[in-house]
Structures are given as C-alpha cells and as structure tokens.
C-alpha cells in the first residue's frame, strides 16, 4: 500500500466526483434537461452496481438476479403510491424491508449452493419475481403502471424538483459507497472476504460463514431496493422489464467494467457503461448501416474483450498506470 493518495486512480475518482457534483449546474447552463435526467439514472444504477459489488466483488457471491431488487423496491413504492400512501417515510422503509425479506429467503436457499449453481439460482428467482410482476393485473401487469405522485417528505424535500432529486441521489450514492467502505474494512467485511478466498478455513477458525454471507446478501438486497425506489421515483413509472435478467446482466457489467472488489469501481463502471450505451445509440450512419440502431454489434464484443483481457476493469487499468 502506497502512502501517497496522489495516484492516477484517485485523481480520476476525485475528478469524476467533481464532475458529478457540478453536472446540474452545467446542464442548466446549457439548458439540457436530458443530461440531468441521464446522470440521475447513472447515479441510481451506480448505487445498484455498488450494492451488487458488495456481494460479488467482496463476497465472491455472483448474483445474476440483482435487478429483482430494483424491481421489488420500485414495485413496493409504486403499489403503496397507487393505494394512496404517498409519504416517503412509510414507502421507503417498507420497500427496503420487503427487499430485505426477499433477499433473506432467496439468499438462504441460494447460499446452500456454490459457483455456477449460485449464479443460475439467483437468476431463476429473479425471473420468478419478474413473472409475478407480469401477473399483477391490478398493478399494470405486463404494461406496468404510471406513478402519479413521487414520494412526499412532509414538505422538507420536494422530489419533483429535478436538481434537488439529482443531489439527493448523489448524496445517497456517496452514503452507499461510504457504507460499503466501512463494511468491507470492518471485522464483518474481513470475514466475508476471508470466506471468499477460503470458506472452510474461515469456518474452522470459528466463524459461522453462512450467517455472515447471508447478512451481507441481505444488506446488498436492501441497498439495491433503495435504488429501485429512486429509479421508480425518477421515471414516475414501473414495469416488469426493470427486473428482466438482461438488466441484472447490465448491473454485473457495470460492476466488472468499473472494477470489481473496489469500493468506487462500480460507480465508474455505471458512468462508463451508461454513457457508452447512450453514445453508441447516437452513432452515425456509416456505409448505409445505421450503427446507432445496433449498439450490440459493438457493445457485445467489447464485453467479451473485457471478460477476456481486462478483469480489473477501468479501476484496474488506472491502478496499473502507476505501476507500469
């Protein structure tokens, strides 16, 4: 560990934080509301990626169903809003608790298994949540439902103010990053990371690893549930596709692209992935082909390349700059 904090990576992270902090000012200066909306989304999904990274990057639990928590958090909020409970003081805790309970049940089952079974089972349970959402006729079924009122916080915070909402998301994202940082550097986090490299040894030392891992899984689910609430507040809409498994894959890509097992990496990954997606969709027509309509032709091989050649993600590249 180097004593100096002045590394390319830290400079990059600091610069990114400044950009994120000043973005609303810039977007109002140039009068581009879309930019603010895009970055609000980036912050929210960044938080989901941070929550996934907690179990995947530090705990070695590759969850392929994390989008379920986005959806369950969003639906819990949306259903309460539709049933007339509009105060965030009830909506948000309920949404987070429901996600925690779902994570508790799913985690207890999934953690009985290892490796590829774990990947597929988290995927399958998320898919179950997806199909249940489709079956909810009263709440829009396949079409989803519009949420007419954002969460109310008794006049303190007006979430309809887009700039204010952006800064709320920013603050919560920073809080989530801080929470993960504190967690992984605590004794709890050491047990989790120890269990990732050698679970049997951690067990032999006397740590009930199952309980530790399950707790970690539940915390991650609750954090992701909070980003689900934010996402539904942001779009004023919730539908089952929020929890489709492609979305779970996106979250995974964000975490890996930014740098797994680093505290801030998933935020970098979310910024990079969503900007890339946005940028690719605007590619011009080249030789009669509208490249922008087929972003997957470029994005897909890029992901394959990341899997093959850049496991440390962007964070790894930035850290490598100093060494090399």
């Amino acid at each position, binding site marked *: 560990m180097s004593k100096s904090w002045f590394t390319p990576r830290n400079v990059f992270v600091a610069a990114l934080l400044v950009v994120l902090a000043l973005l609303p000012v810039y977007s109002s200066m140039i009068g581009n509301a879309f930019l603010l909306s895009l970055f609000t989304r980036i912050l929210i999904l960044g938080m989901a990626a941070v929550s996934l990274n907690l179990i*995947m990057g530090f705990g070695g639990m*590759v969850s*392929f169903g994390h989008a379920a928590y986005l959806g369950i958090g969003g639906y819990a909020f949306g259903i309460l809003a539709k049933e007339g409970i509009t105060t965030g003081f009830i909506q948000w805790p309920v949404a987070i608790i429901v996600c925690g309970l779902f994570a508790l049940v799913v985690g207890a*089952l999934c953690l*009985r*298994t290892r*490796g*590829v*079974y774990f*990947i*597929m*089972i988290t*995927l*399958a*349970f998320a*898919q*179950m949540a997806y*199909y*249940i959402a*489709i*079956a*909810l*006729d*009263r709440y829009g079924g396949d079409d989803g439902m519009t949420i007419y009122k954002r969460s109310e916080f008794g006049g303190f915070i007006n979430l309809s103010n887009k700039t204010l909402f952006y800064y709320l998301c920013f603050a919560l994202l920073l809080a989530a990053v801080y929470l993960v940082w504190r967690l992984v550097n605590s004794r709890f986090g050491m047990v989790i990371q120890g269990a990732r490299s050698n679970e049997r040894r951690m067990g032999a030392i006397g740590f009930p690893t199952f309980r530790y891992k399950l707790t970690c899984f539940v915390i991650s689910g609750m954090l992701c549930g909070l980003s689900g609430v934010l996402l539904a507040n942001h779009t004023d809409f919730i539908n089952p596709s929020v929890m489709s*498994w*492609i979305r779970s*894959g996106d979250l*995974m*890509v964000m975490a*890996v692209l930014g740098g797994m097992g680093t505290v801030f990496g998933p935020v970098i990954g979310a910024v990079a992935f969503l900007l890339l997606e946005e940028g690719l969709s605007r590619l011009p027509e080249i030789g009669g*082909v509208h490249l922008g*309509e*087929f*972003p*997957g*032709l470029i*994005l*897909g*091989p*890029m*992901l*394959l390349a*990341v*899997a*093959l050649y850049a*496991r440390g993600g962007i964070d790894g590249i930035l850290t490598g700059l100093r060494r090399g």
Partner: protein
Amino acid sequence: MLYFIEQCLNGIQLGMLLFLLAAGLTLIFGIMDLVNLAHGSLYMIGAYFAATFAAWTGSFVAGAALALVATLLVGMALEVLTIRKLYGRDHLDHVLGTFGLILFFNDAVRWIWGPAGMTLPLPSEMLTAVQVLPGVYYPAYRLVIIVATLVVAFLLYILVMRTRVGMLIRAGASNREMVGALGVNIKLLYTLVFGLGAALAGFAGLMQAPILTVQIGMGENILILAFVVIIIGGIGSIRGAFVAAIIVGLIDTIGRAFLPDLMRTFVSYSAGSSAGPALSSMIIYLLMAVVLVFRPEGLFPAARR
C-alpha cells in the same frame, strides 16, 4: 378429463423443447465447464435459419435440415472464434463474455433479418389433428415434435454412451490432459461438442418456429427455464436433464391451466383470479427451491463431479 390429457401432452411437448436446450447446456457445462448464456441465441438463430431456408426451398423439411447444418456451423465457428478463449476461466468471465454475445447476436439478427420477426408456415400435412385417444384430438405437428425429440434423445444417448466419440467426450470430461496426452485432438473434440450443443439448441428453435413467431430475444426466457431444468436435474447429467425437463414441462403447463381455477374454489373468486396467475408463474421456481433444500446438487448429480 380430455382437457387434462391435452394439457399433459402440451406439458410433455414443452418438456421436450426444454430437454433439447438443457441437453446442450449441460453437455457443454459438464465437458468444458463453461456457462453459456448465448445458448438461447443459438436457439433463436436456428429458428431464423429455418424460416429463411424454408422460404427459399419451399419445403419445411429441407429448410429444417439446412437450418440444422447452418446452426451447427455457426456454433463451431463461435467456439473457434470466442468460446475457446473462455475455457479454464472464472464462471463470471463466462457469464460476462457470453452475455456480450447475446447483445451481439440480438443486434446482428435485427440487422440481417430486420426487427419485424418472421413466421414459418407448417406443411399442410402437419396441420391436421390426430386422434390420440378415443375422443382426444391433438395437433399432428406437436406430436411430431415429441417423437422427433425422443429420437434425438435416443441418438444422443447412443452417441455419448455407445460410440468411440462418446467415449472420448466422457473421458475428456474427467481428465482433459490425459486424453490429450493419448493423442486425441481435444481442441477439435471441444469444437465438435460445442457444435453439437448448438445444433441441439438450433433444433429446438426450428421445431418451435412454426408454433411461435420467430423474433429477436425469443431464446432468452426459455433459456432461464432450461437453467431451472439443469439445476433440478443436476448439472452435467443428460439423464437428469431429460427427467427434469419433463417434470418442469408438465408442472408448468398443468399449473398454468388449472391453478387459477383451483385457487378460485378455495378463496374468493377475485382473490383467486389475481393470485392464481402469480402462483402459477411461481410454481416451477418453488419446485426448484424444494429440490435445492433436499438435494442441492440436483436430482441426478453427475457422478464425476
């Protein structure tokens, strides 16, 4: 009662489809230790090829045969170009890399065939219904699917258990280095196995094409069901995949057909109407959970793992 028999046949037909997908997945996992999410893309490609070739040749059977060969070739090319580099890597790398392939294939198909989707008309002789039991008529084509898959399952069994190639496949699964040291071209063997898996997925896709619309992303949801099948059956076990596919197919189909009505008789009509569909979409996942609680390795864990 007649309705029940019809639903059972539908369930078996779904089970056959799931088996074709799950067999390829579980073969590739069991032998190369590779998680292939792009398996559903090969299913989709098989269906698109079948629709295209059938339109060119004017014959369903010729189109299907060409599509099968084409999917086999695509699978082998895919293995040589990308999949080969993923062997021996972390499962997370497999997931990420093959997830990238899904995005690629979806847009590649959209580019080549357009976003609209296609239909594959059935030959007229398969449009009829066959009397399977006194008073029970069932679409001939769905029976063709069931019989054809049973034949494929039998051939697969013969191939893996009774032929020299199958012996090499099984030996390669237990000890790759040893088989390589004995002078077997293990690279070629893996390419062939991946191609075989692709062909099985393509076969599932082309058989299903006349029943559904051929469209982008059609392999994605069915792939998850195939995952459920191999989790229940035990990863790497073809026999497990076969049994689990039929169980899952039957339970899913029968659950969807009867659970909403059953719920309405127990609780109030409106509560049953809303809870019934939700419960029937949960049912196979509940089954999976129950199997996991009692047998985390699946019903027929592959002996070598």
